[in-house]
């Protein structure tokens, strides 16, 4: 095995959190290296460059790594999960295959035990993270409208995306019902911003933005981090984190692009590999000193997986809507976000109002659920569907349960022979009641909008790709994996900055909070450099 020169900080994973922590730590002038198992993406490779743009969502830009099966992906056994795992392996990570919806967690999300008597409080609050949310909004380039009564005050640096026909229709209906709505915060540039061009409404944001208006981490944080001296090596897959005789992390063993085993020594190791990849790596790093996996004296590495159940309700109106033109999510509602004792569940959800899909996707999805017939009536029915769809997603808070977990599959391995993760996950009774409440409200909204032909998907489209909770943070080493600033209780030079450190999930897309947390942890590390391992 070859051995590289020692680095000060080694980051594993170049996605949303790895990029943010690399950029923040760069000003320390330490030698920082990031290893990423995927590669750089080229805007010219994104689907919207070609006529087959919709078909590629089912092949090389499929959100499931099992179906996508690029050589840079690793397989995941999610057979025993009602929800399937979505991710992307590359510089930018999940932000490559991402709709760029950018809500923050709410203050109450950090206090669920104190406020609602469930799960656990976080060891930090929204207010600890607030300056990092602001910093991240500026770095990423967020578009939105100040003044939303549904969330704490904040000032997105760019104006909101257009409401369009679809958003206007939603707004009319929500006003009729007397329910809250507001234009969503999105990580899409609505004007030229820090070298990125403004959105031209390609409409197909999720599988990569060919125009560069979507703020994937490869075009936001990474160019700045590289310019500041961070080194990023791609196509390097880490097999395990090694430890020394003092129980400290000594570095990692990885496979380089030629498949050779390399030892990379490091003073500090930071995991930024998401809520499935991080516990997988810790469990794969078991040794005689750490027989149950690294940093796992609590037994909680891999446990408390939260995936955000995300039912969808759709229907069709008579007049033409935006269809696939424009960013997919246009407004949100926080009407049902906070706990209401009158309901039969605690916590709540965000309603997300969508513009939806292109011509082929409409046909495929409608055919699958029996709304679009084969044969002579196909064309007439199709024309009543395409560009007429309204669709509402119910982003449910998923509370932690230890039986929802990531373990190592005893059989499945990746292309380097490294044991693959296995997912065991069920939806809790509280969450199931929350889903039904959200489905009923979404149905009410669509019916009030005059929509017909309603269809509810409870799990069919349930691939939000939010991988949270498997190395939770906390003050008690027996009930958590990392402390309040991301350092593993068991290994004092090992940090985790990705979604696995979440204590609860909130009812929002997580990327904004993941990146704010990464910046917060990086700042804590910088403030404690002299005593980092105490």
């Amino acid at each position, binding site marked *: 095995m070859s051995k590289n020169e020692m680095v000060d900080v080694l980051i594993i994973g170049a996605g949303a959190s790895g990029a943010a922590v690399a950029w923040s730590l760069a000003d320390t002038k330490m030698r920082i290296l990031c290893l990423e198992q995927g590669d750089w993406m080229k805007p010219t490779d994104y689907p919207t460059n070609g006529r087959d743009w919709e078909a590629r969502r089912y092949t090389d830009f499929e959100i499931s790594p099992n179906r996508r099966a690029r050589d840079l992906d690793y397989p995941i056994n999610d057979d025993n999960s009602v929800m399937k795992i979505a991710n992307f392996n590359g510089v930018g990570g999940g932000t490559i295959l991402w709709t760029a919806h950018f809500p923050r967690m709410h203050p109450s999300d950090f206090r669920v035990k104190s406020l609602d008597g469930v799960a656990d409080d976080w060891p930090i609050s929204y207010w600890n993270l607030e300056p990092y949310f602001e910093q991240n909004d500026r770095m990423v380039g967020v578009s939105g409208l100040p003044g939303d009564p*549904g969330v704490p005050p904040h000032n997105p640096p760019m104006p909101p995306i257009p409401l369009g026909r679809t958003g206007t229709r939603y707004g009319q209906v929500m006003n009729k019902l007397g329910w809250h709505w507001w234009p969503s915060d999105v990580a899409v540039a609505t004007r030229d911003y820090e070298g990125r061009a403004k959105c031209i409404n390609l409409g197909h944001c999720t599988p990569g933005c060919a*125009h560069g208006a979507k703020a994937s981490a490869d075009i936001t944080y990474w160019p700045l981090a590289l310019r500041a001296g961070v080194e990023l090596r791609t196509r390097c897959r880490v097999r395990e984190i090694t430890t020394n005789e003092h129980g400290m992390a000594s570095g990692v063993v990885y496979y380089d692009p030629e498949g050779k085993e390399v030892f990379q020594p490091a003073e500090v190791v930071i995991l930024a590999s998401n809520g499935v990849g991080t516990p997988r790596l810790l469990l794969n790093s078991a040794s005689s000193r750490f027989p149950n996996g690294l940093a796992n004296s609590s037994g909680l590495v891999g446990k408390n997986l939260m995936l955000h159940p995300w039912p969808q309700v759709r229907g069709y109106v008579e007049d033409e809507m935006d269809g696939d033109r424009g960013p997919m999510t246009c407004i949100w509602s*926080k009407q049902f976000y906070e706990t209401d004792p009158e309901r039969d569940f605690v916590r709540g959800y965000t309603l997300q109002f969508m513009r939806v899909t292109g011509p082929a996707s409409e046909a495929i999805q409608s055919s699958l659920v029996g709304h679009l017939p084969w044969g002579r009536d196909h*064309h007439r029915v199709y024309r009543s569907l395409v560009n007429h769809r309204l669709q509402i997603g119910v982003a449910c808070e998923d509370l932690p349960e230890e039986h929802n977990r990531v373990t190592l599959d005893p059989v499945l391995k990746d292309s380097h022979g490294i044991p693959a993760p296995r997912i065991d996950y069920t939806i809790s009774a509280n969450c199931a009641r929350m889903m039904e409440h959200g489905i009923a409200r979404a149905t009410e909204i669509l019916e009030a909008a005059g929509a017909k032909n309603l269809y509810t998907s409870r799990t069919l489209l349930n691939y939000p790709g939010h991988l949270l909770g498997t190395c939770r943070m906390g003050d008690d080493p027996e009930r958590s994996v990392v402390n309040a600033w991301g350092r593993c209780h068991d290994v004092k030079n090992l940090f985790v900055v990705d979604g696995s450190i979440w204590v609860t999930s909130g009812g929002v897309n997580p990327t904004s909070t993941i990146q704010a947390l990464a910046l917060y942890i990086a700042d804590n590390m910088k403030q404690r450099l002299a005593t980092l391992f105490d």
Partner: protein
Amino acid sequence: MDGLTKCGLSADELADFRRIAGFMIPADATYDVPGADDPLIFADIASSLGVDREDVRAALTSLRQFAGCPLSDMDDGRAERVSFEFLAQQGRPIQTLGRMVLAAYYRDDRVMRSIGREPRAPYPKGHTVPDGDWSLLEVVKARAPIWRDDRKA
């Protein structure tokens, strides 16, 4: 037609596939659209199978077993009836076959024009989205905050 020879399906499989595709989405003069068995569209379907080829092949094998003979041996009425009965069975291979037909059909220039879209990729021209009616937000702006402030709990 290069896609037909390189797609990895046999001539018999392609013949059944093309016939069922024509029943699934027939040509329609009302909308001025070809069927999915149109030579250009079917060549696009066949050349796009990629990782889904084995699922499509499995569907075509099941179709042959279900029909008891090649669709080409049946008259139009019987072949169409058998095809729809087969498609109603669902299952992953049949769904994949349907997806392959639809994904290629709904990018054909003639079909795109018929549904009022320019036949092009989204990039680089993009689309125009109307700004919408922002005055609708005035009533929402007037509401008191509804988020829960944990500092006051």
